[in-house]
């Protein structure tokens, strides 16, 4: 497996949906490839950070306005 092939399938690995045989092949590549290990670690972290920052909760005052809006229909 090359770095290109490894990075192309990292999403399935990180999401836990990669077939076991392919995951084993990827892990063999990762053992010997420091750049891909760094890529995996930072990809995983970027996914978590992106989700945390993109998660916007609806402000309470907006919820109250929505309630009033629906009551007025």
């Amino acid at each position, binding site marked *: 497996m090359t770095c290109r092939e490894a*990075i192309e399938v990292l999403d399935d690995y990180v999401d836990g949906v990669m077939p076991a045989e392919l995951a084993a092949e990827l892990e063999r590549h990762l053992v010997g490839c420091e750049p891909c290990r*760094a*890529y995996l670690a930072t990809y995983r*972290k*970027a996914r978590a950070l*992106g989700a945390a920052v*993109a998660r916007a*909760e609806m402000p309470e005052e*907006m919820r109250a306005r929505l309630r009033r809006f629906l009551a007025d229909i």
Partner: protein
Amino acid sequence: MSFWTPSTRPGIRGCRLRTLSTDDRSLLARAAAGDTSALDAVMTQYSGPIYRLAYGITRSAPDAEEVVQDVFLQIINKGAGFEGRAALGTWIYRIATNLSLNKRRGKRRELETSLDELLPTYLDDGHRAGDRAFLVADWSSTPERELLSGESRRLIEAAIDRLPEHYRAVLVLRDVEGLSNEEVAQIVGDTVSAVKTRLHRARMALREQLTRHLGRRA
């Protein structure tokens, strides 16, 4: 050797959109008929997720608020005719996605960059191309609390802003709402393969922008 972290061991996380129950159908019919308690129940369950998705796509609180109101207008206007071929959540997410994308039409495109320059490049033999110090830069042990505040948080916000809106839609539905690729494909009206590609590219673009900033400190 395994590179799994405890929280990401196989077995896809996230909720599944349940199919429409008799209760859902009745709730929708009553909401559409103007029953305030039914509408309140729909609002309690769905206003938060609709807002998260609308804000994730539009990146604007006023636009997201309008989308939420418009989604509820559609629920009231069309809810009674909903036949339940899709899960209720899928139907509502689809309305919210379409309205959010419409809201974005013609706006802020100058912020959005081509993702190509944020994706990894390779040598002819398939190894990564680029300066080795950059390729092995690993900032992932930086505490999350530090990364989610101050300059780093602004950087992540800006990186999300620069994603094309269809990519942000997939990112929010998968990584924030925790839906499966199949569910997201139904919502955005695309193939599972296209959803997977978009999600992977969006995450790689985020990773690249963070690494360019944080990798120097690693």
